[in-house]
């Protein structure tokens, strides 16, 4: 075999992958070489010196390739006089190491003793205690008795805030640089650094605001000691009290696998609650990373303002009611609607919920009618192109590099899907050719080989030019991300078709590491499309609302104030809202149903890469709320006498029987786990906490038509007419900000509140000048009959006659859902006479 080489470990010959370093290679064959600074996701630096081994080279007969033997018949090995660090040594054929000799064992003992001279050994009060590499290795290699005087220990800051999310204990830090290297190498935000030297070497943040990144929490996972802790979890629980429950992050379409660390909590009245969210290893999805939104955004499940009882409108007011009353009323209204029933589902409604909701609507219609099943938000479309030429089954951004071209169009991945951003960035670092096509600068531009600036409306023309680019035409692999910035529903559908056309016309469909990804808005928007929901349906439901409108997790009023009138309480119109909180939409409903949060129940969601994944019940559910699937199934029972299914698994089983793409994707199948490399979740916790290990399943990607050999021929849509703006008019373009004020998220992470910017509008410097506006001014933006106040930001790189407005920052006067023409005027500050 050419892809493996011979490595002799303690006299035994092993075959290990070529190019691996000694730590990884030894681990693959079951030999744990202890480490502190080394991490398989980071370039080795050889700093901690824990992985010292005896290193040698066996003589190899040039002609036969066999080992030259000594007089005992063993391979003759020339040993180096000095110990070598295993992490920085790449294996070559015939390399030999000794890992159990007294020299090596003593070296490990020595290094641990050195580290402990400056470590406080405060394990009893340390958050890492119980899942700490240093603690474990001290048990194995520690001297047992200190030769170092306690009085000579350095005393340093114990609670140094590196930002408001992460605290640094400077006494515990062992200067391994995993945190600084993670930020610099993997994220590309070099906001942490060493300061000073020698024994005074310490971690500092170099950014303002401090530790300015969306990925800060990951540094606490990979910290090999308790030096970095999150403000959210520190002193919250001991690791051995925690049970890791597999879950899926509900915040964006990446579908990061997470582990909810739960315990029976006295403070929570003896209920099982989630104490923290940690990444769960899935090398095909999020590897071992999650963004700070996913990590800190779980508090909504225990928020005091959660709805716990159904509400029924009586005399113009919503008053508490029983489930029986609420469901009977809904069943009655549906029966009376004579088929005029529709439903709109938001971004985090599970496949099981969607399926049962679909049954409600279909039963009311007496058959199939997907025109009445809408998704929200509804500005994104074109899911049929994903079904045809979506990212091929088996693709993995972790394996993309040279030869692969990644195109990101009309999207700011760092805000919309941070882990996709991270993985695309790292693929680009490995040599993938990244092309960004946006009307404004985005974070990914820093890593792009070509940044093609387009105008809003110029997307199709830009795509057309791509087909001629050698980097696309001649690339081994092409992946295209299609976002929706600057587009309405029809525009996005056209763009999706255009991207599909680029892929098919250049022969990049139906092959691993090729295909199309829609940057959807929600964690299960893909699932909604798969189960027959569509943006087109939403559009028609909103244009002509049905007699009974069911809204599940779709806060259509908060996102578009114009929708208030749709929900006006008129004779013959009835609105059902399933929500966790009394949102702006719920406040307008006729019946409000309290739904469960993602940690209180089980189910499946389908990621933007079409990976169907399971999440499990982690937390004791609140008294009152029910899972949507159960509620909708009960409505069906009331209406048709059908026998409701008893579990989410049973609902999924039905889905697998009825939906072709989901064939065979039972809970058992989705729960399967294969061995992953790097092995970060094993018995040794060298690479981080105990939560990485994936016991909940890797999920399954469903195959596209192209994967099954049916590559369609897709025509490139015609270039549309450019939008004409009158002078003084602005194109208001909604953009996405990761941390926003959506009710579920705002209730989720009080810690992140200060990270949510005030509502702002970004203007081109020329426009700002004309409008007499400068940075920091207040301005009123009007569009579609809605006005809102925003803080002005001026940016020369924004296109002229454009106003970028971040969505969901201003819930009082919502941002338009799709680009529309509007105007802006300055708020004159009137001097007060005191």
């Amino acid at each position: 075999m050419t892809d493996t080489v011979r490595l002799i470990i303690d006299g035994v010959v092993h075959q290990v992958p070529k190019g691996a370093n000694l730590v990884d290679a030894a681990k693959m064959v079951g030999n744990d070489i202890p480490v502190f600074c080394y991490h398989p996701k980071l370039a080795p630096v050889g700093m901690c010196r824990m992985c010292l081994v005896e290193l040698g080279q066996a003589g190899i007969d040039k002609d036969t390739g066999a080992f030259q033997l000594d007089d005992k018949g063993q391979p003759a090995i020339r040993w180096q006089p000095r110990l070598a660090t295993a992490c920085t040594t790449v294996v070559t054929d015939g390399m030999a190491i000794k890992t159990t000799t007294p020299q090596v064992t003593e070296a490990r003992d020595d290094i641990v003793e050195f580290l402990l001279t400056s470590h406080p050994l405060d394990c009893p009060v340390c958050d890492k205690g119980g899942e700490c590499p240093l603690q474990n290795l001290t048990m194995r290699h520690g001297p047992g008795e200190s030769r170092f005087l306690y009085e000579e220990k350095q005393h340093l800051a114990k609670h140094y805030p590196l930002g408001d999310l992460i605290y640094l204990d400077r006494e515990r830090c062992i200067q391994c640089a995993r945190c600084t290297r993670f930020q610099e190498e993997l994220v590309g935000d070099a906001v942490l650094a060493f300061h000073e030297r020698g024994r005074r070497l310490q971690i500092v943040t170099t950014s303002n605001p401090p530790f300015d990144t969306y990925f800060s929490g990951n540094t606490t996972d990979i910290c090999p000691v308790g030096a970095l802790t999150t403000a959210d979890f520190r002193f919250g629980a001991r690791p051995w009290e925690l049970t890791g429950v597999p879950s899926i992050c509900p915040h964006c379409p990446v579908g990061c696998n997470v582990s909810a660390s739960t315990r029976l909590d006295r403070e929570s009245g003896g209920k099982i609650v989630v104490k923290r969210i940690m990444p769960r290893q899935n090398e095909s999805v999020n590897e071992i990373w999650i963004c700070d939104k996913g990590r800190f955004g779980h508090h909504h499940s225990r928020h005091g303002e959660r709805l716990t009882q159904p509400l029924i409108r009586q005399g113009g007011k919503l008053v508490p009611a029983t489930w029986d009353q609420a469901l009977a009323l809904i069943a009655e209204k549906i029966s009376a609607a004579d088929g005029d029933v529709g439903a709109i589902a938001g971004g985090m409604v599970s496949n099981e919920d969607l399926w049962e909701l679909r049954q409600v609507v279909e039963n009311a219609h007496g058959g199939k009618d997907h025109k009445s099943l809408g998704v929200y938000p509804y500005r994104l479309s074109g899911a049929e192109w994903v079904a045809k030429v979506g990212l091929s089954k088996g693709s993995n951004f972790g394996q993309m590099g040279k030869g692969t071209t990644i195109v990101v169009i009309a999207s700011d991945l760092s805000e919309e899907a941070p882990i996709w951003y991270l993985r695309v960035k790292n693929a680009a670092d490995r040599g993938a050719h990244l092309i960004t096509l946006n009307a404004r600068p985005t974070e990914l531009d820093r890593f792009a080989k070509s940044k093609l600036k387009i105008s809003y409306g110029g997307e199709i023309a830009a795509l057309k030019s791509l087909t001629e680019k050698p980097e696309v035409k001649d690339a081994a692999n092409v992946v295209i991300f299609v976002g929706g910035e600057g587009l309405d529903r029809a525009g996005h559908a056209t763009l999706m078709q255009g991207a599909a056309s680029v892929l098919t016309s250049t022969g990049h469909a139906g092959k691993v590491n090729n295909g199309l990804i829609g940057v959807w808005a929600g964690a299960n928007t893909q699932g909604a499309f798969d189960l027959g929901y569509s943006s087109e349906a939403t559009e028609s439901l909103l244009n002509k609302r049905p007699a009974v409108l069911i809204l599940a997790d779709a806060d259509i009023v908060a996102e578009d104030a114009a929708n208030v009138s749709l929900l006006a309480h008129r004779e013959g119109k009835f609105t059902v809202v399933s929500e966790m909180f009394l949102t702006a939409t719920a406040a307008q409903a006729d019946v409000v149903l309290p739904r469960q949060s993602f940690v209180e129940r089980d189910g499946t969601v389908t990621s933007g890469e079409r990976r169907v994944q399971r999440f499990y019940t982690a937390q004791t559910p609140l008294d009152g709320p029910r899972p949507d699937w159960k509620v909708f199934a009960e409505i069906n029972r009331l209406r048709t006498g059908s026998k409701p299914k008893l579990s989410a698994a049973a609902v999924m089983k039905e889905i697998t029987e009825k939906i072709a793409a989901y064939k065979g994707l039972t809970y058992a199948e989705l729960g399967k786990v294969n061995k992953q490399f790097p092995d970060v979740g094993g018995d040794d916790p060298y690479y981080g906490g105990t939560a990485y290990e994936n016991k909940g399943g890797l999920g399954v990607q469903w195959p596209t038509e192209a994967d099954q050999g049916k590559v369609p021929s897709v025509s490139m849509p015609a270039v549309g007419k450019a939008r004409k703006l009158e002078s003084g008019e602005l194109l208001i373009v909604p953009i996405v900000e990761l941390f926003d004020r959506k009710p579920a998220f705002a209730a989720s992470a009080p810690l992140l509140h200060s990270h949510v910017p005030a509502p702002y509008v970004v203007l081109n410097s020329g426009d700002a000048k004309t409008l007499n506006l400068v940075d920091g001014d207040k301005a009123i933006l009007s569009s579609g009959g809605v006005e809102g106040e925003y803080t002005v930001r001026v940016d020369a790189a924004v296109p002229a006659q454009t106003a970028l407005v971040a969505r969901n920052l201003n819930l009082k006067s919502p941002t338009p859902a799709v680009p529309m023409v509007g105007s802006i005027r300055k708020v004159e500050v009137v001097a007060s006479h005191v």
Partner: protein
Amino acid sequence: MANILLREKDIPGIGQYDTYVQHGGYDGLKKALGMKPDEVIQVVKDSNLRGRGGAGFPTGMKWSFVPKTEGPKYITVNADESEPGTFKDRQILEYNFQQLLEGSLICAYAVQASAVYIYARGEFWDIGPHMEAEIEKARKAGWVGQNIGGSGWGCEVYVHLGAGAYICGEESALLNSIEGKLGQPRVRPPFPAVAGLYARPTVINNVETLANVPQIIVQGAAWFKSIGTEKSPGPKIFCMSGHIEKPGNYEFPLGLTFRQLIEAAGGVRGGKKLKAILPSGASGPLLPATDKVLDTALTYEDVAALGSVLGSASVIILDESTDMVWATLKMARFFKHESCGKCTPCREGTYWLLKRLEAIYAKKATPADVQLIEDVAKQMQGKSLCALGDFATSPVMSALKYWRDEFLAYTQPQKPAPAKAGKDKVVAGGD
């Protein structure tokens, strides 16, 4: 014999471009430009010139490691002279700079480098403008910049001042420092010859090493080998300091003995008896003043045979009045202060050594502490990322080897009670 390196002793003002040229300056570069780059490397190889920064690595061989690939390559002149007792490079930079510049350019031509970075320690801030002014003179004369000497080959020269860290004399930390990064050594491989400055092939040579090069090219390898010994040929600057009558830089061919060197520098100060010699600043092991030592030839191999190193030949003389505990403490403090902190044994070990040596010197230690510092020093050896961690153990190990009694004399049989009878204070041997 005329000085080859400290030429200003014979020709005042040789460091000025005009004077330098009047005395054959740039003849070496001119001659080199008429040769093929590989031929230049071969001459330096043949001369057996060895690196004067301390390691004594064959210079020509170092140059030959640079791959003949496309793209930029660099020369870095290590002028971060920071070893205690070393002040030879400073004299060259100040008084014979053109000779260094010419040597650097010959090296740059030999490996086809496009730029020379002179990395000088931050404390040389006042020499910086002088170097830059001399570089400008050489540029006007056509020796720096595009198409040097009509050869078609061009080379820039930059002066970069450090910020006061001993570790930046370590070649890879030096490269990091030029790149604006934290001055910490890099992991090798890759070696600088393959991926050095800005990840490009780089030759890093000491000032004194390169100052030898012009005359090697002009007079030939055989001439150079006729000076000094067979394995350690050429002239060498010896920095004499400590308890010596006439401290300063002395140029001699390699191979004279310690005794001859001390006599040349006027003998031990005040006619006192010699006690110990540090042949290579703080980082080489101490040697006792025995006849065997004094009659040892100053060559790379002979000093190594004594269990020490010739290093940069910064010879510190310690007379009979020297308290070896005090001297060791001074050096331990230096290494603790200068450890970069990147790797564990050096960062923690230097601190621990210092703390215990302070206690010994303050007479607050027991004989067990003397054993402890020896153990800690041994524990550090061979485990560090760069050589600093090993250097830091040299004074301790060698002082204990020859003068252990002096350390024991400072100790008390039993540990004194802790200064403050603490409430919860954990004492020695506690957890």
